[in-house]
C-alpha cells in the first residue's frame, strides 16, 4: 500500500506506522523529521513550510512507486506537514513495512533522501534576528 499525504495539521505517527504494517511484515522502518532548535548556531523561532501541492503529490508518488519496484517492501507511507511549525514539531514521517529489515531500512533512507532533492516543498527558517529560505542561495 502507498499512502501519501500533505497535511496542514499535526502528523499522526502511530497512524503512519499502522498503515505501514500488516501480518506479512516482519518490521517497519521509520524516519521522523523534527524541527530543530538551531541552525549553524542560530536559534530558530519557527519554520514556515509551503508546497506546490499538485506537483508535490505526484513527485511523492513517483518516489513511493520507485521504492516499491526497487526493494521487497509491502508498504510506503509518506506524510509531510506544511504551514507554521515550531521546535519539536514533526515535519515529515516516512514509514516502510517489509518482510525483512534490510529492505525496509534501505527503502526508508531512499525515500527521505529523494524527497529532500525532488519534491517541491520549501521551508523558511525564522530566526530571532532574520529569516531565510533554506538552500535558496549559493
Amino acid at each position, binding site marked *: 500500500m502507498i499512502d501519501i499525504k500533505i497535511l496542514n495539521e499535526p502528523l499522526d505517527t502511530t497512524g503512519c506506522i499502522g498503515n505501514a504494517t500488516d501480518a506479512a511484515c516482519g518490521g517497519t522502518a521509520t524516519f521522523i523529521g523534527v524541527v530543530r532548535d538551531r541552525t549553524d548556531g542560530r536559534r530558530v523561532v519557527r519554520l514556515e513550510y*509551503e508546497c506546490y501541492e499538485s506537483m508535490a503529490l505526484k513527485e511523492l508518488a513517483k518516489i513511493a512507486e520507485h521504492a516499491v519496484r526497487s526493494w521487497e517492501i509491502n508498504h510506503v507511507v509518506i506524510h509531510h506537514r506544511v504551514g507554521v511549525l515550531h521546535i519539536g514539531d514533526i515535519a515529515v514521517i516516512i514509514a516502510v513495512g517489509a518482510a525483512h529489515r534490510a529492505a525496509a531500512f534501505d527503502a526508508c533512507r531512499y525515500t527521505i533522501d529523494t*524527497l*529532500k532533492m525532488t519534491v517541491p*516543498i*520549501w521551508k523558511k527558517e525564522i530566526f530571532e534576528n532574520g529569516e531565510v*529560505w533554506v*538552500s535558496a542561495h*549559493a
Partner: protein
Amino acid sequence: MDINILAFGVVKEFFGSPSIALELQGELTVAGLKEELEAIYPDMKRLRAYLVAVNDEYAEDELVIRPEDEIAIIPPVSGG
C-alpha cells in the same frame, strides 16, 4: 496571449506575488522563459539553481511552452 506563472518560496518574494502573467510572443521555450524572467527579475540570477515545471513535471530547457500549460518556477527545494 498571456501565460500565467506560479511562484513558490523565495521566487514569490522576487515576483512580489504568488503568480505573474507574461505575454507570450511567438514560440517560447523553457530556456527562453528563464532568460525573460532573469531580465525582469535580476534576483533570479542569485539563486543557487532553479527549475521550471510545466504541468506538474520538471521541464527540459528545449520544451516549447503552450498557452494552456501550467508553468511554475521551482527554486531549490527544502522539504523534510
